[in-house]
Structure formats: C-alpha cells, structure tokens
C-alpha cells in the first residue's frame, strides 16, 4: 500500500462520492458546486495516469469555462425554473428513478464484469508496449511530446477541432441571442 495508491483512492472516493451526492441533491446550485469538486477530483486522477497537461487543461477548461457557463445559465433562467425543478411528474409511464437506477446499475455491473474479466489478460498492444518499454514514465516531458505531436502527427485533427470549437461558440452565441427580427 503505497502513498500514491492511497491518494488515488482518496481522489477516486472524492470523485465518486461527490458525483453521487451531485445526482441526488435537490438544489441545482449545490449540485453545480459539487460538480466543481468532482471535476477537481477527476483532474487529480488524471495526474495518477501521468497526464499532467490533461489535468491542467481539465481545470482550466472545465472549471474555468464550462462550470462558469453552467452557473451563468442556471442563473440566467428565472425563478420559476427553480420551482419547476421540484415538480414531480404524475405520469404513470415515465421513467421513474428506480428505472434509471436499474438501468445504470445494470450498465455498471456489465461494465465492471467486462473490465474485470478483461483485465485478466491485458490486450496485446499493452503487453508489447510493456515489453518494449514504451511506457510513459513520470519523468517524461509530456507537454513537449504533446505539442510536438499536435504540430506534426495530429495537425489535421487539431485544425479541425479548432474550427469546430469556433463554430460551436459562434453557434452558441447565435442561439442565445435575443431574436429581434421575429
């Protein structure tokens, strides 16, 4: 039992616990702040996977962008919305929570089963990577490698994703603007 493993468990527990609380809490504002914790915990977990740059980006983009956006959106919707959140559907056939619970539980068990059964035998490419020693080590300079890859190997997806991001932002702005001409 090493310290990193303990830390991993702590982060994992924090992420999972916060996430569970997130989905069960009634107050949306609190839920969003819980999401903040979850995202931080997730970023911590990325570190354990030796993806420091990803972790930083996670915090920057999610916490700095997405979460702020969500809170803004939440705040932009009026008070009615807050009441509406509590309203319980009286419809007979809508999916009640237990159904969602069952489905997600089932999904979880299926996934866990697959993960466990799969983890008995590592895929071939992982085995070969371990053999060849091409495994990221904590001492590697990830940022340099990533940047290098982005500019060479992944330059086309990189460009596409940036255009896509721009389109999304323009689209979002377009959607949320007030419709004057209508």
């Amino acid at each position: 039992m090493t310290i990193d493993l303990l830390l991993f468990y702590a982060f994992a527990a924090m992420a999972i616990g916060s996430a569970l609380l997130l989905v069960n809490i009634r107050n949306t504002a609190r839920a969003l702040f819980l999401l903040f914790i979850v995202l931080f915990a997730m970023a911590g977990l990325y570190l354990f996977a030796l993806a420091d740059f990803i972790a930083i980006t996670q915090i920057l983009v999610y916490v700095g962008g997405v979460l702020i956006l969500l809170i803004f959106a939440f705040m932009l919707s009026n008070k009615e919305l807050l009441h509406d959140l509590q309203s319980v559907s009286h419809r007979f056939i809508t999916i009640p929570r237990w159904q969602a619970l069952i489905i997600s539980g089932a999904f979880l068990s299926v996934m866990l089963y697959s993960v466990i059964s799969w983890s008995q035998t590592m895929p071939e490419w992982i085995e070969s990577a371990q053999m060849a020693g091409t495994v990221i080590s904590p001492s590697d300079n990830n940022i340099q490698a990533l940047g290098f890859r982005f500019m060479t190997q992944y330059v086309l997806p990189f460009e596409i994703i940036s255009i896509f991001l721009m389109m999304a932002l323009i689209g979002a702005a377009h959607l949320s603007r007030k419709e004057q001409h209508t």
Partner: protein
Amino acid sequence: MITITHFLVVSAVIFCIGLYAVLAKRNAIMILVGIELMINASILNFVAFSRYDKVNYGGQVFALFAIVLAAAAVAVGLAIILNVYKYYKTINPANINELKD
C-alpha cells in the same frame, strides 16, 4: 501500484453516475451535468490507456480533443436549453414530449 483496472473501475462508476443523472434528472442542466460526468469518465479512460502509448500519445491527444468538444457541447447545449426554456417555459424534459406518437 495503480493498475489500469483501478482507473477503469472508477471511470465505470463515474460513467454510470452520469448515466443515472441523464436518465433520471428532471432538469436539463443536470442532464448536461450528467453528460459532462460521462465525458469525464471517458477522458479518464483515454488518459489511463495513454500510459502505454508513448509513441503516439493518442490517448492524451484525444483526451484534449474530448475536453474541447465537451466545452463546445456545453456551450451549444446551454444555448439550446435557454431557447427551449423560452419556448416551453420549462426545462423538464418530461414535459417536452413533442416526439410522442
């Protein structure tokens, strides 16, 4: 030693929690939050597998891509939710049943 299985299990749990949120929540914003959770779980997987791919760094690269996409999706999604709210005066998906037969 933190094996890949650890990551996978945590990712699966987070994913399912997100899934639950998507299925069960009566609030569009919370659904969006659920989706974010699921995306995060998948990013965790990317990252976890990325450890064994030093040559291409595919996992981490695509994790970055996914983060960007998620951000874009949230932006667009929120815009849509606001429009929906303007139109239906609700963001409860249960009340938006135009697809009903």
